[in-house]
């Protein structure tokens, strides 16, 4: 018996039957896979582009961890790949900073914004609200292609002779404004700014579409409060993006002006390499305000979709309704509203007026309240459930663990009195990697393992998924937990080498350990990548419409839905998406009318 035969011997005919009912409009390879206007294909385009970027961004972190962990060693093979950037097998400081900058930019924007909210907004919104596609499929397609263009420009910047941007992902001027200050601030920085401008257009086109679709295209009976929490999360994510990304765009354009047209928005009183610049009256702090007005909402753009996905996956696999649905929506709303008024907590040590700073302390720590509500509601969702540990569920549980760990350290950093000590140390590196990086990735993995069957009509390999989860979960804590101690010793972030510092050189052994673990965790992610692509073509086929026994609408479509999602009428919705374990029934689909005898909740 061949492998394929074993895998699919239990197959029934449902798959082929489903195909017969799809609408067929004429599709060529180009319209189906390249310039597709089908939200599901666009989602996959976002996803696969995001995965490619994640590999590149992750690889960069491995490279700079080699330097941090083994500052005395040389790696001659690096020179074979990187040439002049790693002469003699040692990474050049300028290139080290380019790697750090690109790692941040790629992971924050290209992976955790486009790859996470781009993928799941596109894939889930029409399917879960009951629409045939987005409000404007054409704009949706454009949105991806702007992302693609941004990707090409950013990729190109990696290959220019003076190197890609190297001023940190926050690109603070004057460092990013002056080519004399850093070779990464030459053409590489212009490409960064152009790429990000294209990226922002992608985010705006996408965001407007998501908002419009959720507000206007819900199926009959799908009131806002019957939507799954993923919809609410993606809705608020889109609002955050639409309102804050334009501010970054303006900041980026002013920076382009300062760089190329001789303006002085961010520049004043500068002597660089003995050269006295004519610019006067600008303020570098202005840029930080513009940057963080997006930059802070951006971290919620990353984490809200992960929260939504985790809520959905946890409820389904606990076979229990999500606890406190309205409180979950309310806390998402509170986080969204507060996200706009806390940006200056990134700027406590810039010379910001301390009195003004105190308002940002108060508003920042307020975010802990809706965050606490969410955590306790997730815990209560698990309580007295009947939990199935699917790979998606494990990542959802891992997400909550990471969100707790990283969220609590936010209470340190949001408090200006502590921030003055912890700012720009490894404490903040640990904090945001756990709460935004790892938690965001966990949300993404939870979603991918959970909706992969809907995306490709096949399952991913479970054993590989479990190995992937456990290595990543254990590895992430091993990497980031000890970093808090480095931060409490005042060890600054973005240092190429600590060996010259009497105050920080005692962590050489720990740095080596962290680097070693991060290589293993990176390798485990390659297992995931392999599993993902292998399963698209060779995974076990899905044979039932609703493999997880979920109540939401996307599982009422055919196993491989065509463009238009439902072969016949779009189903009508009669209830919320969380009737699990009600009246002794395992689950009740949203499409089932409320029965006469049914108990109220």
């Amino acid at each position, binding site marked *: 018996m061949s492998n394929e035969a*074993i895998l699919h011997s239990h197959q029934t005919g449902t798959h082929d039957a489903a195909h017969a009912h799809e609408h067929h409009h004429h599709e060529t390879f180009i319209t189906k896979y390249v310039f597709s206007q089908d939200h599901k294909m666009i989602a996959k385009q976002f996803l696969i582009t995001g995965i490619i970027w994640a590999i590149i961004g992750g690889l960069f972190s491995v490279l700079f961890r080699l330097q941090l962990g083994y500052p005395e060693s040389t790696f001659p093979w690096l020179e*074979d790949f990187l040439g002049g950037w790693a002469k003699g097998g040692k990474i*050049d400081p300028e290139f080290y900073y380019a790697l750090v900058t690109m790692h941040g930019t790629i992971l924050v924007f290209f992976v955790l914004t486009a790859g996470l909210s781009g993928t799941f907004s596109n894939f889930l919104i029409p399917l879960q609200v009951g629409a045939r596609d987005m409000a404007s499929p054409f704009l949706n397609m454009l949105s991806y292609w702007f992302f693609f263009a941004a990707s090409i420009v950013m990729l190109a910047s990696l290959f220019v002779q003076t190197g890609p941007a190297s001023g940190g992902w926050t690109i*603070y001027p*004057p*460092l990013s404004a*002056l080519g004399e*200050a*850093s070779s990464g601030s030459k053409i590489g920085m212009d490409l960064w700014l152009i790429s990000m401008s294209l990226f922002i257009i992608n985010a705006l086109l996408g965001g407007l579409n998501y908002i419009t679709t959720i507000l206007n295209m819900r199926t009959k009976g799908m009131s806002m409060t019957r939507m799954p929490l993923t919809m609410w999360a993606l809705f608020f994510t889109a609002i955050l993006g639409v309102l804050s990304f334009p501010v970054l765009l303006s900041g980026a354009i002013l920076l382009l002006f300062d760089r190329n047209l001789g303006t002085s928005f961010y*520049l004043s*009183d500068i*002597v*660089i390499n*003995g050269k006295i610049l004519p610019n006067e*009256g600008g303020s*570098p702090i202005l840029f930080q305000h513009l940057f963080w007005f997006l930059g802070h909402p951006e971290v919620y753009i990353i984490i809200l979709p992960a929260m939504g996905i985790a809520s959905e996956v946890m409820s389904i696999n606990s076979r229990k309704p999500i*606890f406190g649905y309205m*409180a979950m929506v309310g806390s998402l709303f509170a986080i969204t509203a507060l996200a706009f008024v806390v940006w200056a907590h990134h700027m406590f040590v*810039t*010379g910001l007026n301390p009195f003004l700073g105190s308002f940002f302390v108060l508003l920042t*720590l307020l975010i802990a*309240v809706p965050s606490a*509500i969410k955590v306790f509601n997730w*815990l209560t969702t698990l309580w*007295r459930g*009947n*939990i199935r*540990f699917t790979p998606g569920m*494990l990542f959802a*549980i891992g997400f909550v*663990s990471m969100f*707790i760990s990283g969220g*609590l350290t936010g*209470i340190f950093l949001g408090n*200006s*009195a*502590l921030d003055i*000590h912890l*700012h*720009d140390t490894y404490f903040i590196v640990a904090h945001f990697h756990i709460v935004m990086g790892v938690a965001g990735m966990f949300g993404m993995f939870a979603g991918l393992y959970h909706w992969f069957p809907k995306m490709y009509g096949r399952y991913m*390999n*479970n*054993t590989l998924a479990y*190995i992937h989860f456990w290595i990543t*979960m*254990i590895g992430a*804590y091993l990497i980031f*937990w000890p970093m808090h101690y480095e931060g*409490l*010793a*005042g060890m600054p972030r*973005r240092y190429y080498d600590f060996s*010259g510092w*009497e*105050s920080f050189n005692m962590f050489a052994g720990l740095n080596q350990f962290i680097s070693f673990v991060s290589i293993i965790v990176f390798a485990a992610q390659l*297992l995931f990548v*392999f*599993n993902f692509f292998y399963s698209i073509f060779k995974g076990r086929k899905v044979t039932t419409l609703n493999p997880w026994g979920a109540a939401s609408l996307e599982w009422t479509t055919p196993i491989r839905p065509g463009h238009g999602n439902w072969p016949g009428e779009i189903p009508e919705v009669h209830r919320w998406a969380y009737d699990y374990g*009600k*009246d002794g029934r395992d689950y009740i689909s949203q499409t089932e009318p409320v029965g006469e005898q049914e108990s109220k909740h």
Partner: protein
Amino acid sequence: MLRLRRIWGMNDFFLIAIAVMIFLLIFQIAKASEYVSILKGEEKARKQTNKINGFLLVAFLVLGLIGAWWCNKLYYGKTLFPQGSASVEGESIDTMMWITIAVTGVVFIITQILLFWFSFKYQESDKRKAYYFTHNNKLELLWTGVPAIVLTVLVVFGLKYWFKFTGDAPKDSQLIEITGKQYAWDIRYPGKDGVFGKKNYKLTDASKRNPLGVDWTDAASHDDIHVPTIMHAVVGKPVKLVIYSQDVIHDVGLPHFRMKMDAVPGIPTTLWFTPKWTTAEMKIRTGNPNFVYEIACDQLCGKGHYSMKGEILVESQQDFDKWIAGEKPQYLKAMAPEEPAKTDSAAMAKPVALNSK
């Protein structure tokens, strides 16, 4: 095409081969387990895996908590807590830190235990039916209210300390100017008049010994003393730093004093603190004969960022007076490269009053 500068040795290929073999091995195991589960019956296999993962989750909790304790044992001694804050103001930061660690620590332990314990306890079982529990206003009010109250306490304490050390520096503070540039620190003392000479960045000219762009026409500049890298400060006496940058944003990072402030081109910032121990005392306190109060640049400023180091030498008033008496004002260095007149150095030999408002 890659231009190979080095012949790749057998070892490299061997390592790559091992990595590929491990991947293939894991993949084969994963595939085999999939066949086994199908042959055995998917439902049965799923339930077995469920039990394994439930156990692993609770094992992770226990080992994780032990690991956290062990990590603390290994690294607590290397943090700045055991040596205490080297500034008076930093003491309140440490107090605030302990309050926050206590509060978040309790929440951390309770929530993580609940998360993994619930996962383990309520794993799928044929005997259990999930409890249909949609909301409970009392509970939700409880965990909205309690965090709100606790956070209010943290905000109140935090802001109390924050206003204390971001307020005006004491009147008797010693005024010191520190200027960052790629990748070094320059330090200026106002001299006996206690007033810095005016600066204009357009006058900056290192070749004329005016690296800070001081306007020599301002008489207040004539007694200003410039020194590179090493700042001298007096123990027990508040220091008020006026912070400048000449090129990009830097940051005066003072981990031992628990302080930090950006150096922003065009916008001077300030920071003050009171050193508690001299450098010599700290060498004994930390048991490290090489101890120095390092100034670490904490804002990415270019490729030499990691090497942008300054130092604060905290010493007694006598040692400080002796040191500054031996320093020649920059004005004299700039105007008269040859030895200055005797009378000038005689005047400088007396202890100078460096106080300012």
